[in-house]
């Protein structure tokens, strides 16, 4: 595929062989390639990453952008939008980045509603620092720093984003097609889009049947404009254990963006 090559930097990839980040990379590139095929230019895009395994994606996508600091992806995205309101900005974070170090930015960015697409690679573990628990790690998880196992219930980011009034809230599995589709939907949405990708870490946090438990909200006819329904669906999976895990777009409603309110387009 021509567009695919076009978006590659050619840098040797250092993710573990078989890492699900490859699926995320492919899904994201496919979605961007389609946007470009439909008339957008490469220069219309910018990518921003945090720090962690996910952040290496910056090195593998040939687009302008900033590989920023751990937890600081969203304010950097916002600053870029202030400079170039029409820029299509995609932020990448891990679960440590988004839910631990950068939590305050996540909540406020949902409130500010800049037209930024935010992808969280949630593998429920700090992988690049060799396996410590994050705010979304399940009870009982053990590693060298937590020999007695995790004792705190994980955070539910979907509920948090709904409560913070995010205009686009989605969760998908680390599957190329799912990612491509949800990102394409997010591009159509005017405003902040929160996309969480449930991504097994093949070294520190294996799948354990998560994929099989996931079902599509859209196939079930979920009404994505209904906030209360979205909240109910969000409660089906508490990130600790679940019978079934909803996947797809929980909620979508457009409202005035940060750019609409504060930036006059030049």
């Amino acid at each position, binding site marked *: 595929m021509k567009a695919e090559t076009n978006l590659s*930097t050619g*840098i040797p990839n250092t993710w573990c062989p078989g890492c699900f980040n490859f699926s995320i990379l492919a899904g994201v590139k496919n979605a961007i390639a389609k946007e470009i095929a439909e008339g957008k230019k490469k*220069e219309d895009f*910018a990518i*921003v990453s945090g*720090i962690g395994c996910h952040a*290496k994606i*910056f*090195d593998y996508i040939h687009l*302008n*952008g*900033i*590989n*920023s*600091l751990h937890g*600081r992806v*969203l*304010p*950097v*995205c*916002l*600053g*870029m*939008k*202030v*400079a*170039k309101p029409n*820029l299509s900005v995609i932020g990448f974070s891990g679960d440590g980045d988004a839910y631990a170090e950068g939590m*305050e*930015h996540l*909540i*406020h960015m949902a409130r500010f509603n800049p037209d930024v697409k935010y992808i969280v690679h949630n593998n429920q573990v700090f992988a690049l620092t060799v396996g410590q628990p994050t705010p979304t790690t399940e009870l009982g998880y053990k590693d060298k720093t937590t020999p007695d196992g995790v004792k705190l219930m994980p955070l539910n980011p979907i509920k948090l984003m709904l409560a913070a009034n995010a205009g686009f809230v989605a969760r998908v599995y680390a599957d190329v097609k799912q990612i491509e589709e949800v990102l394409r939907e997010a591009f159509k949405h005017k405003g902040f889009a929160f996309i969480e990708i449930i991504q097994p870490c093949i070294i520190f946090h294996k799948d354990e049947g998560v994929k099989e438990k996931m079902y599509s909200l859209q196939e079930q006819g979920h009404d994505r404009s209904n906030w209360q329904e979205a909240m109910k669906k969000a409660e089906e999976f508490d990130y600790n254990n679940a019978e079934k895990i909803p996947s797809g777009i929980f909620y979508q409603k457009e409202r005035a963006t940060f750019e609409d309110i*504060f*930036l006059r387009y030049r």
Partner: protein
Amino acid sequence: MRFSILIGGKAGQGPNILTQLVGEALVNKGYFVFYSRDYESLIRGGHNFNTLTFSDSESYSNDSVIDIIVALDENSVKKHKDKLKKGGIIIEGSGKDNMYFAGRLFKVLCMDFSILEKELKKLRNFDENLKNSRIGYEEETRACIVFKANKGINGRFMNGSSGIAEGAIKSGMEVYYAYPMTPATPVLFELASKKDKGSFKIFELENEISVICAAIGSSAWGMKSMVGTSGGGFDLMTEAMSFAGQAEIPIVCYLASRPGPGTGVATSTGQGDLNMARHCGHGEFFRMIVAGGDPKECEELTSQSFYFSQKYKIPAIVMSDKHLAESFYTIGEEAKITKSEKTMKAGRYNSYEHTETGEATEDTEITKKNFERRMKKAKEIEKEAGKFEQYKIYGKKTSKNLIISYGSTKGAILDSISGKDAKFLQILYIEPFSEKIKDELKKAEKIVLVENSATGMLADLIAEKTGIIIKDKILKYDGRAFFCDELSREIEEKIK
């Protein structure tokens, strides 16, 4: 000749509006006027006071003794009557508003009522203010013999915060991000009041981390960006200063100090952040640091920070403190603004050590080469800074007694050394530090450091840069600025 007025009252009684009004009227008459604000961290009540000194010649500081006390409440008399000079005047009266006191003060100062009327036109509630001030003017029967003004001055009356804001606007700043913190917030007030006429935007974000990261994002995509904060907020920004150092993205940061550690004395003044600014952020990278001593220098140095920051893609810090940020000075000359080109455009930037195309690298050769390139850049900055006034010398040029300082102490030092066998070396560029300062220090027999801090950090800097150890230090760390009369005695003691 100097004359001092203390105007005190509760927060909410309007001592600031009154002081500003009197100050502007005196400047318009041709006096040199300086006033500082002393207020508590509360919104209504408490005790706030401003000390205004006016003179027929250059004057940039207050004295510890007072000629007139204007007491908007009883507490103001109680708190300050010990400072009143023999034969001094107290203007008091209960249940009256600030404009009534304005009337009485103008009468005492032998200023025509028409001048007050003209000043009142700048404020809201003109009719009511005019009525109340006229009552005060007519009730007051005392008058001081006041010296004549120097009509030729024609000065601007401004504080350090407007200097910073003006400097930023004139440098073509396009965006200012901040989170409120005293004493940096007045710059935000200034910019907010001018944003609709200017071509810049201001944003208040969720914290100082977000503030500086957003500024870096904007800056990378070509915007001239600036942030402002005080010590505690700056602590939070330091990680991103280091990021800017690595990614080579320009950023101008305004750092307005107050006494720490911790929350410290929130509405007081101090110069305790010099070492923090010099060493902010992890890793080895060049941080430009400048500090003006009056509003005009704040304006000029802000424009120079934009110049160096853009040209060399570095973080630059403009330092000030509560005393400079919030005191009003009479400025005779216009500031010289240094124009700066915009240098940034969309590209690939990285907080990791990186290749020329922006990808993270762990390669030893590239790492070494990048360090060397950044260090070479620092040398170039050092060289180019030589074209600017990195330090200034005042007073008796041939004197062997050298007073050295930086920042807001300038006013009190200038006023104190007047007529003494002493000269004053004011450092404007902390980094890059001028090599010539060493020669100046060598010429002196006695070097005295003056600093609004408990340890005298400028001496550390000088020792590091020149090898010269300064033993004589005049330090003040009670949260208040130096008084001219007290400092004058202390300097005399050191140089006798």
